[in-house]
């Protein structure tokens, strides 16, 4: 099973056709050159405890209510047993009249990375190997006037105390684009945008081709190169099927706006932890929401606006004229 996986990785280097009709060509290629490779991916992905049931699972979007219910129950049982605690997996859907938006106040962010680690814990990200959905980039203040180029940002900064003199910070995770390039290139329909604006991944359908990672302009998607590992005592038992359920080797994952929390009305974990209150979250369709207040009273911008991906993650300067 090892070699096919490596061959598959090589295949992924070939760029996908941008047009929507590429799927068929993709299948043809898959069937001839790399058939074994690509196709074996779901099996490889699940590592050594290959789960037949999840391999035959229909795509999340096509499950009937009854099937979804059965799936949720099966997964709750499976993970309760596996982790020895009361795991509750939900498939709670979007609320009517809700479109999520996130705001981040760059003038406040201190780069303390508490959001990064709260996110890891909430969303059952692999501890070793390490997967982190949020990256906090450090930039020189003096450079800011010339415009921010994300590739100048340093995520590996180390200081005793932050913010460091003359620096500012931009945390980046999935921008939940309305015109999401990632979902367009997915050959299996394993990633899509939900009616409330959350871009999600069906981990059972992800074949690990990583086209979406190449397509994402924000580097927000992360690949499980090895079997992810979260100690049972650290597992967050409040799970969502297309959110923080445990992943397996060979699948891609990313921020879901904490779908397991936000669809129940709660704030995302990163929002709750931020010590300076730099993170704002809410319903873009509700004029009374804090995110709409930000949109109305602050100057907001999105990253790489020129790509017209229409992110639902906005950055703003809460304070003008004060350094």
């Amino acid at each position: 099973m090892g070699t096919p996986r490596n061959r598959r990785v090589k295949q992924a280097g070939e760029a996908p056709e941008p047009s929507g009709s590429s799927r068929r060509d993709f299948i043809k290629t898959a069937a001839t050159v790399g058939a074994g490779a690509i196709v074996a991916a779901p099996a490889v992905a699940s590592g050594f405890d290959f789960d037949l049931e999840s391999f035959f699972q229909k795509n999340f979007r096509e499950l009937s209510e009854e099937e979804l219910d059965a799936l949720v129950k099966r997964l709750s049982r499976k993970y309760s047993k596996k982790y020895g605690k009361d795991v509750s997996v939900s498939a709670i859907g979007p609320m009517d009249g809700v479109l999520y938006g996130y705001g981040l106040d760059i003038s406040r962010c201190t780069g303390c990375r508490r959001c990064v680690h709260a996110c890891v814990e909430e969303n059952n990200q692999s501890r070793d190997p390490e997967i982190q959905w949020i990256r906090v980039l450090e930039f020189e203040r003096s450079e800011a006037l010339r415009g921010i180029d994300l590739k100048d940002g340093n995520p590996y900064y180390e200081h005793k105390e932050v913010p460091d003199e003359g620096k500012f910070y931009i945390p980046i995770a999935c921008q939940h684009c309305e015109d999401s390039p990632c979902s367009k290139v997915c050959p299996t329909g394993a990633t899509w945008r939900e009616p409330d604006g959350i871009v999600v991944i069906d981990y059972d359908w992800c074949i690990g081709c990583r086209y979406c990672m190449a397509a994402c302009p924000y580097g927000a998607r992360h690949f499980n190169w090895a079997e992810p590992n979260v100690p049972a005592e650290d597992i967050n038992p409040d799970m969502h099927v297309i959110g923080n359920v445990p992943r397996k080797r060979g699948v891609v994952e990313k921020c879901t706006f904490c779908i397991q929390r936000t669809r129940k009305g709660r704030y995302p974990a990163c929002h709750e932890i931020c010590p300076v209150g730099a993170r704002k979250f809410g319903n873009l369709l509700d004029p009374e929401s804090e995110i709409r207040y930000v949109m109305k009273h602050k100057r907001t911008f999105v990253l790489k606006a020129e790509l017209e991906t229409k992110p639902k993650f906005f950055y703003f300067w809460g304070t003008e004229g004060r350094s």
Partner: protein
Amino acid sequence: MPGAGNDPGKDRLPGNQATIWGTLGLAVVVIVGLSAVRLEHQPETTRDYPPRPLIADGPAVMKPAPEIDDEYLPCRDCHTSPDRQTGPIPRELEYEHEDTELAHGNLWCLHCHDPERPGRLRLADSSLVKFEDSWQLCTQCHAKKLPEWRAGVHGKQTGHWRGPKEYQTCVECHEPHAPPFGTIEPKPRPKRPDEIIQPARISGEEQHGDS
């Protein structure tokens, strides 16, 4: 990298291994077939969810101000003597509170504390409020922050974006005597790519290498 074509052990497969490889081959063919079906099949662009009404919004309450644990409490223990020094002109405190470093614009204690009852805060209209209602004092001078704070934009709300929420009062983040938020210790940085140990090679590869 070992390719499938140059498998050195190929010609020397004993009988039972051949059966194993044959079975595996068959399994691959089955999986290929099934997965081709999967690839060819295009799911809807989104799930057809049953309607789910917006849940009710909840009250916004203020998180109680952090408790003060101060050797000086209660203030009235000392501040009752009629001959103690006081006055609106800033002076160096020598006898008590010499540790209270005041670095807030160029304010003096009595801009905020009542001279008679320093355990109460004095608003511009001379009314007195308790420490736990200090936000009323702060927002008198920092009026622009009031609507932002109420909207959850300055400072922070926790709990629910839709449902009950709690918001933090000013002194949770700002020490009134020296209000800048200051610096804090960061959490550990992510691993650099060169620090990540390569995932263990998988058994298939090792077999190739060994034979």
